[in-house]
């Protein structure tokens, strides 16, 4: 594993915060504390997901698509649980988590294909 992985983690996190923040605004999340929670929950899950994906690629070698799906599902579940427990203005926490993660995942795939 090379040190430049840290830059990858940083860029991925930055992009995720931007995209999921955007989705939060679209669905009507306006409470500042809830918006901050959205950011922190992604700081909690995104670097871990990206790192696990790279660790599998570097050292284990399980099918990458399967690993991606499992990691994203775990992230959606974790974020949904946090929103349900702590967010006061997110009415449908798990749906929000699915939408936000689906959107950032889709944009990530698109950027990968375009770049």
């Amino acid at each position: 594993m090379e040190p430049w992985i840290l830059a990858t983690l940083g860029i991925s996190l930055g992009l995720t915060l931007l995209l999921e923040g955007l989705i939060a605004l679209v669905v009507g999340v306006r409470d500042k504390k809830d918006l901050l929670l959205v950011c922190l929950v992604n700081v909690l899950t995104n670097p871990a997901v990206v790192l696990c994906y790279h660790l599998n690629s570097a050292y284990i070698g399980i099918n990458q698509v399967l690993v991606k799906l499992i990691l994203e599902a775990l992230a959606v579940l974790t974020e949904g649980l946090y929103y349900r427990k702590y967010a006061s203005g997110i009415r449908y926490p798990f749906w929000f988590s699915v939408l936000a993660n689906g959107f950032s995942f889709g944009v990530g795939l698109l950027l990968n294909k375009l770049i």
Partner: protein
Amino acid sequence: MKMKLKGMVKYAAALLLCLATLIMTYSVVLADVIWEPNDSFYKKHTDDCEYEDRTYIANGEKGYITVYKDPKSKEAEGYSENGNTYFVSFVYPKSAPEDKKWGIIEYQVEEKGIFTEPDGSKKTKTGWVKMEEMMVNYDHYSFYSDHREEFNDYSGGFDPFSYEDPILFWTFPGSGVIGSRIDMNNNQDMDLNFSYLYTDDEGQEWGYVGYFYASSGWVCLSDPTNEKLPVTAPNQEDLIKPSLPASVDLSDNDRAEGETPVAVIIIALVVGLVVITAVLIRIFWKKKPTASDSSETQKDA
């Protein structure tokens, strides 16, 4: 009722946005078939490989480059002297900086541990090289980078069907290398489209064709069928003097050392970040009251 409807509309809008990005992803396809190497590492990591499609010259600091079985292997397969030219089809991983990427090449074995560029005389194998040891072979992309300020738009006037001999597609103006010969008599239904024009130092006009039946290249509009156009490509400089290792030692201890501590540090950083974030959320966010909490509060009251 109105508030609930408004909330549903917002979620529907977000869902549409989400679906649109996913659909767009699957709409971006490659028009032509791209040759893929028969390499087990490449097949396992296709998603993380990027199409390179360029020729490079071996230019290792020690006078040779090291060829590995794959980017994760700790032992070298062999060595190749500087000056050997290899076609790099794909690089890995996508997210790495340019000088940290690995490229997949095909080589032929001259003797145990010594490889050369394929010349068709022997069976080829695939291997991976560090891109920092490779020097790009001056090509169309290099030419574009050096001369793009001099390009102009094509304004028409070239009739490829007026030539009996095939139209020549050169790799770039002055390369001396013909990429394709196109007999326009066999392609009457499609005209050549020139993306941009370039005028060389001799005053010859060149037009770039980005795509024509899976071919691309530069046409000398002033002399499109002449196979003896002068070669004016810049000399390949900065090639480090070729040599080979004194003994073909196929282990690479330098790679094994240092890699594990870096991985451990990165893992520790991420775990630390996760723990700190979880603690912050727990301290600064109050748990939302559940239904059972509210009914107990009411009983107490």
